[in-house]
């Protein structure tokens, strides 16, 4: 079998960031080769895998994507470091979920597409904490627009329901999805009792109409782990189009080394196939977009004589500042039914609680009532009551209708001690597993103690909760950020404002890793906006113009 060995631009990773970059380059007439560590599968295969999972594991998004031996990704943790892929330490576990499949983790994302606010990008200037972005919101705005039209975002046309609350320079391509009666009730309750506005989520899901060759959402309520009809954008839906434009996409190709050459430019990457044979691919420009964990891991694995601490790592910031949106999910039992599960799995949220001068003291938080159908979460508990017959039917129905999951997602500050390094433990190919040390920090903990949980309890009370289960500690939101952080100073950041490595002028590292602040909303839309911006710079660079 012949292996493609060269392209003008080599992109490592086929997730949403790599796919968006590839399309911009192809449209500019630039050849693209994409390398994907994992397999390429059909939507039908993923759906069947999901349907054939036992009920007790259906809530785990990764279980519908069994990892290939050569491309391991995090699965439900066993506690055995030889079995677990992520090696974790620290006060809080960075136990993230992502998949190494062609199309990346947008296969199982919810599709939520919040923008940052102008204030979210100026934490240090406004509140004296964290880092500022190196450009302002108005600079990012046109790239947000591109991202929203590329992914097909539905969102409200009423300015009072938009986020951030400022005039949009371009309307959303589709109207927002309707609320179910339960979401309408929640919206009414938090408004009347607490004065909050529950906003329609801007989301990458087709609202009432086909878009980009994909059908309208029909309430399969299975956005996570997979939309069975492709109404939600996932990068897998873009791969065939990229190929029709000339992209070469190679799956089951695990890039394990980045090779530098004259002037410390990147000149090749090396990948292993499932037979453990290594292949070399050359290019003029390189994009590493394999997510916020795999990208810094690959950079660190590629240390050479010119770059003894790793590629792009003269600042020693690669793998540092690992961030997420630490979340706390409360399970409420309510007096009255809310009947969640109709429509997409996330359809609304309270964002105003993420903003304010309090951010000098503690993190903001975003609240949402998840809209997953509740059967899978309540069935075994209902069975354990020992009821039978009609009483059991009524118990399941009551628990499905009257329980909700209320989530507070927090922002977190960049901290160099939250760090990804290479573990001594190896994967199937003999490559080091990633090790992450993580502590959400006092800024976030103070928010949970003094701010977000008191608000959550007030929301629960307003909803008529008769029981509130509040977990100890934080869970992860699976929003990987920070490991290749952006800045103007090459001594304390990895990439410049175009997501280009400070150390290698033909290496781009777009995506969540570049984000200097997290805010509270999901990161994907900002990652994609950064991809559009990086693509613009790369196209200019490839054509000989300066970005």
């Amino acid at each position, binding site marked *: 079998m012949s292996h493609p060995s060269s392209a003008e631009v080599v992109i490592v990773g086929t997730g949403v960031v790599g796919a968006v970059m590839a399309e911009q380059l192809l449209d500019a007439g630039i050849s693209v080769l994409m390398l994907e560590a994992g397999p390429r599968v059909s939507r039908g295969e993923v759906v069947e895998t999901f349907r054939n999972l036992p*009920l007790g594991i259906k809530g785990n998004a990764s279980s519908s994507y069994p990892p290939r031996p050569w491309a391991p990704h995090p699965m439900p943790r066993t506690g055995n470091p030889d079995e677990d892929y992520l090696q974790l330490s620290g006060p809080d576990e960075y136990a993230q979920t992502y998949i190494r499949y062609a199309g990346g983790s947008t296969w199982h994302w919810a599709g939520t597409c919040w923008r940052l606010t102008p204030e979210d990008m100026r934490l240090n200037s406004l509140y004296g904490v964290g880092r500022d972005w190196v450009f302002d919101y108005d600079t990012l705005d046109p790239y947000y627009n591109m991202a929203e039209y590329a992914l097909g975002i539905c969102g409200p046309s009423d300015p009072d329901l938009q986020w951030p609350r400022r005039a949009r320079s371009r309307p959303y391509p589709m109207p927002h999805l309707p609320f179910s009666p339960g979401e309408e009730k929640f919206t009414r309750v938090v408004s009347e009792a607490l004065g909050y506005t529950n906003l329609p989520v801007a989301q990458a899901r087709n609202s009432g109409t086909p878009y980009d060759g994909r059908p309208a959402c029909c309430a399969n309520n299975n956005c996570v782990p997979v939309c069975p009809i492709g109404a939600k954008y996932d990068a897998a839906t873009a791969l065939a189009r990229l190929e029709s434009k000339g992209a070469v996409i190679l799956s089951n190709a695990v890039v394990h080394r980045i090779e530098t050459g004259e002037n410390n430019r990147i000149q090749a990457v090396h990948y292993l196939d499932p037979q453990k044979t290594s292949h070399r691919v050359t290019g003029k420009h390189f994009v590493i977009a394999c997510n916020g964990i795999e990208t810094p891991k690959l950079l660190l694995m590629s240390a050479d004589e010119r770059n003894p601490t790793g590629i792009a790592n003269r600042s020693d910031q690669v793998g540092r500042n690992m961030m997420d949106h630490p979340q706390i999910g409360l399970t409420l039992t309510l007096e009255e039914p809310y009947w969640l599960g*109709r429509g997409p799995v996330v359809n609304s949220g309270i964002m105003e609680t993420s903003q304010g001068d309090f951010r000098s003291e503690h993190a903001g938080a975003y609240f949402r009532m998840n809209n997953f159908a509740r059967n899978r979460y309540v069935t075994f508990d209902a069975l354990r009551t*020992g009821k039978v017959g009609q009483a059991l039917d009524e118990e399941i129905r009551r628990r499905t*209708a009257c329980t909700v999951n209320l989530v507070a997602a927090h922002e977190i500050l960049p901290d160099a001690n939250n760090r990804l390094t290479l573990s001594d433990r190896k994967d199937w190919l003999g490559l080091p597993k990633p090790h992450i040390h993580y502590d959400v920090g006092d800024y976030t903990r103070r928010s949970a103690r003094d701010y977000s949980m008191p608000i959550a309890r007030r929301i629960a009370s307003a909803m008529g909760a008769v029981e509130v289960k509040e977990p100890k500690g934080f869970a992860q939101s699976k929003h990987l950020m920070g490991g290749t952080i952006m800045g103007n100073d090459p001594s304390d950041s990895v990439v410049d404002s175009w997501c280009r490595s400070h150390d290698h002028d033909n290496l781009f590292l777009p995506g969540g890793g570049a984000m200097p602040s997290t805010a509270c909303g999901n990161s994907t839309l900002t990652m994609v906006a950064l991809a559009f911006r990086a693509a613009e710079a790369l196209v200019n660079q490839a054509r000989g113009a300066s970005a």
Partner: protein
Amino acid sequence: MSLSVNNAFSARGVSRRRVLRNTLALAGSFCLASPHLAWAAPEIDGALNERFMRLSGLLVNHQLDEEVGRKMAIHAARHFKQLETLIDELLATAEGRKARRVEAFFDDVPEGPARELAYWIIAAWYSGSSDSSPEATLFTYERALTYQTTLDMTPIPSFGLSAPNGWQIASAPLDALPDF
């Protein structure tokens, strides 16, 4: 916390919960080495299958799919010692009360292996799985009875509920159980 209230379960309920928990855990431990869908290979004696279904119909008073029941019976035959004896015991209890519904005889089933089997059969029909563990055997997804209890209001995930943007039908009352 102040909003929490304890569920006031009866002593009988507590006992039932304990038995069911033990049953699910026991079945789970049997299943650890079993791949999903491991029921597919062997057959089961027709008479035993018929009695399993008859018992299922007494324990779960809904429309039950024969093929799903056959998978459960195969699994039960592997994991419950003296399955036939236990089925006969339960059938005798039900028939002794001339029961047509589970409520008419279940309280007369003594604690022990027969009651554990009864709970397991009920749980299997409702969950579609052999137990609550990640390694459980799947008997059915879309025919699991848990989804039928709410089918008027919530989708079976991955099966569409409505036409585009058409999920705003008024909420149904809790006591309006679908007929299934």
